[in-house]
C-alpha cells in the first residue's frame, strides 16, 4: 500500500494511518458510528501480525490497550460518546502511569444514547475534563478523510513522544465520509517511537524524566525492570504520600504537555492574513466554515479560517494573536457552544465572539455560519 489513493471512509483511513504508524494492537467494543474502525482493524491487524481484541466493554478495551502499550506495542481503541464516558477512569490511568496510546472518539449526538447514528462535536470539553484529578491532555481532531490518515499518525507520534494518551476526536461527519485519500507509506511519513533509556544504567528509574519532562520507557522484559503506577509515585515508581513528590509529579505531568505546547499544537489557517473576520473551528465543522468563508468572499467580506487540528492543549496565545486585530470571531461547532468558551477566554473582551451552533444531529451548514457572521457584522 504505497502512496496509493483510496476512496475510503474516514474511519477506514484512521485504521490505515494507525497501521502505518506501526500500531499492532487494537482493543475495542463496537459502537456506532465508530464500528468501521473495529471492523477494519479486525481484518487488517492479523494480516500484519498484529492483534484485534474485542473486549467485553469499553473499560476493558482501554485497559487492554494500556496493557499492550506497556507490553511494548503501539495500541489504539475507538469508540463513541457512551463508550468514551466509560473509558474516562482509565484514560486517567494512562495519564498517571504515562502510557502512550490513542483513543479515538467518533463523536455522535448525545447526551446519553442520544441520536446514535448522527454526528456531533459535543464531547470536546469532556475530552479535556472528563476524568477526575488535575492533569492536561492532548486532543486532535480531523476534518477530512486525508486528515484521518495523516493526523492519526501525528496522534501516535505525540503519544509516543510525550508518553501519554492522545484523544483523537473525530465525529460522524468525517468518520462516515468517503473521500479520496493518499495512503502514504511508512517511508513517506515521520514515525516516532517511544524514547528508551540508555543501556548500562546502574539503576533505571522508570519515572525519572529527562529535560523534556518525559521519562524514557524501558522495554518490558528487556534489561531493566519496569514499574508503572496509578497512585502518586516517586521516580522509582514506588508509591509516595509525600506532598512534595506528589506535587512534583502532578506538575510534571501537566507541564510535559503544556510546556511542549508548541510542538503539540497543530493548526491550519486559510486566508487569515488581512482578513477582517475569523472563523475558528475544528473537525467536521471546518468544512462548513471554509465553505462559508468562500461564500462570504462572494459577498465581499474578508473572512479567514483557523482550523484547530490540535484542540487540546488549546492554543490560547495563538488564537489571541490571530484574533486581536479582527473585527469579530465566529466559532462554528456542532454542539451548543463548547470551544467558544476557550476562544472567549483567549480573545480580548472588545472583540465580539459569536457561535454558530447546531445540535440537532444534522451537520452544521455554511448558511448557519453566515448567519452568525451577519450577527457579528451587526454588532
Amino acid at each position, binding site marked *: 500500500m504505497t502512496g496509493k489513493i483510496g476512496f475510503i471512509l474516514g474511519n477506514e483511513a484512521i485504521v490505515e494511518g494507525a497501521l502505518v504508524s506501526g500500531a499492532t494492537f487494537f482493543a475495542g467494543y463496537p459502537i456506532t458510528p465508530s464500528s468501521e474502525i473495529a471492523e477494519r482493524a479486525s481484518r487488517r491487524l492479523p494480516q500484519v501480525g498484529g492483534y484485534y481484541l474485542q473486549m467485553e466493554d469499553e473499560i476493558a478495551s482501554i485497559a487492554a490497550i494500556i496493557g*499492550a502499550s506497556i507490553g511494548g506495542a503501539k495500541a489504539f481503541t475507538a469508540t463513541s460518546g457512551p463508550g468514551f464516558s466509560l473509558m474516562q477512569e482509565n484514560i486517567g490511568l494512562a495519564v498517571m502511569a504515562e502510557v502512550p496510546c490513542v483513543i479515538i472518539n467518533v463523536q455522535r449526538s448525545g447526551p446519553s444514547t442520544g441520536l446514535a447514528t448522527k454526528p456531533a462535536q459535543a464531547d470536546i470539553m469532556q475530552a479535556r475534563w472528563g476524568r477526575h484529578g488535575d492533569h492536561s491532555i492532548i486532543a486532535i481532531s480531523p476534518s477530512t478523510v486525508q486528515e484521518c490518515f495523516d493526523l492519526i499518525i501525528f496522534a501516535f507520534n505525540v503519544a509516543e513522544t510525550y508518553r501519554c494518551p492522545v484523544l483523537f476526536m473525530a465525529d460522524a461527519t468525517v468518520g462516515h465520509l468517503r473521500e479520496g485519500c493518499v495512503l502514504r507509506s511508512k517511508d513517506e511519513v515521520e514515525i516516532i517511537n517511544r524514547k528508551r533509556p540508555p543501556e548500562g544504567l546502574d539503576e533505571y528509574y522508570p519515572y525519572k524524566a529527562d529535560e523534556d519532562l518525559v521519562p524514557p520507557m524501558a522495554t518490558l522484559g528487556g534489561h531493566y525492570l519496569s514499574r508503572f503506577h496509578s497512585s502518586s509515585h516517586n521516580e522509582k515508581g514506588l508509591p509516595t504520600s509525600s506532598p512534595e513528590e506528589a506535587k512534583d509529579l502532578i506538575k510534571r505531568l501537566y507541564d510535559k504537555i503544556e510546556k511542549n505546547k508548541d510542538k503539540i499544537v497543530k493548526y491550519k489557517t486559510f486566508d487569515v492574513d488581512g482578513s477582517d473576520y475569523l472563523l475558528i473551528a475544528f473537525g467536521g465543522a471546518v468544512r462548513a466554515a471554509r465553505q462559508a468563508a468562500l461564500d462570504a468572499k462572494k459577498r465581499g467580506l474578508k473572512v479567514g479560517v483557523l482550523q484547530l487540528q490540535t484542540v487540546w492543549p488549546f492554543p490560547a496565545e495563538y488564537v489571541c494573536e490571530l484574533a486581536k486585530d479582527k473585527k469579530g470571531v465566529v466559532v462554528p461547532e456542532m454542539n451548543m457552544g463548547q470551544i467558544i468558551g476557550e476562544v472567549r477566554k483567549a480573545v480580548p473582551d472588545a472583540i465580539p465572539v459569536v457561535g454558530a451552533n447546531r445540535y440537532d444531529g444534522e451537520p452544521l451548514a455554511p448558511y448557519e455560519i453566515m448567519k452568525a457572521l451577519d450577527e457579528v457584522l451587526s454588532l
Partner: protein
Amino acid sequence: MSRRSKEVSWKAFLREESLPHQWCAGCGYGVILKSMLYAFEKSGLAPKDVVVVTGIGCWGKADDYLYTNTVHVTHGRALPIATGIKVANPSLKVLALMGDGDSATIGGNHLIHSSRRNIDVTAIIANNLNYGMTGGQYSCTTPLDSRTSTSWYGDPEPALDICRLTETAGASFVARTTVYHVGTIERYILMALSHEGFSLVEVISPCPTYFGRYNKMPKAPIMLNWLKDKAISIERAKNLSEEELSGAIVTGVFADKKGHSFLSRYNEIQARAKKDLEGE
C-alpha cells in the same frame, strides 16, 4: 528452612528494603506473597520475565514488595491490562494479583471473560472475604449474614464461588486453597505458572483487622484455625450434599484442562489473515 535455590532465589524477587510491609499484624497476604516468591524460584523464571499487575486493595499493594516488572493499575482492571501486556508481548509471564473485590466484585466481568477467552495470564486472587483497603465492607465473597462495616445487621447477599464461576466460564486451570494450607499455595501457583491458558489460584486469607474483628475472630491464629475447620477438599466435597457443604470452603484443583489458549487460537487467526492478504 532456607530454600534450595536451583534457579533464581526467591529473595531475588523480593524488595527487602520495603519491609516491614504495610499489611496488618496477622494478615495472610504476607504468606501468599512469600508462597508466590517460592513458586517464582521453582518456576525457573527470572525477574525480568515476570510482569505482576496489581489492582487496588490491600493485596494490590503486593507490587511494592516485588523485584519484577510491576504494573499497579485501577481497581478492578488488572485482568484486561494483563491481557494487553501478554498479547503484546507473549514471551512474558504475566500475573494479575487481585483481591476478591478487585477480581470478582467490581472486576467480575473481566474475570468471566478472561476465563472464557482462556487468555494466557495467571490470576492470583487473595480472598479475605471483605474489602480490607477501604475498611472492611462486605464483598461478593462475604459469607451470607456476616457482619461487616456495611452489614451491621448481617450481609443479605449470598457469597460468590469464584472457582465454580470461572470454571463454568471456561478458565482452564482453577484451584483454591487457604492461608492455613500454606504449602498448597506455592504448589498451585507453580501449576498455574506452567499452565497454558487462563489459570487462577484463589487463596482464602485471614483479615483479622476487619473481617475477623467484626466476626468474633480478632486474631490471626483464630482465623487460621477457622479456615482449617471450614476447608473441605474437592474430592471429599463430591460426596457431600449442598446442605452439608453450605458455609464450607472447598479446596483443591477445580479445573486443569490442556490446550486452546487464546494466544494459540489467535495464532491461527493470524495465519488465516496472512493467507487472505496474499490472496487479495
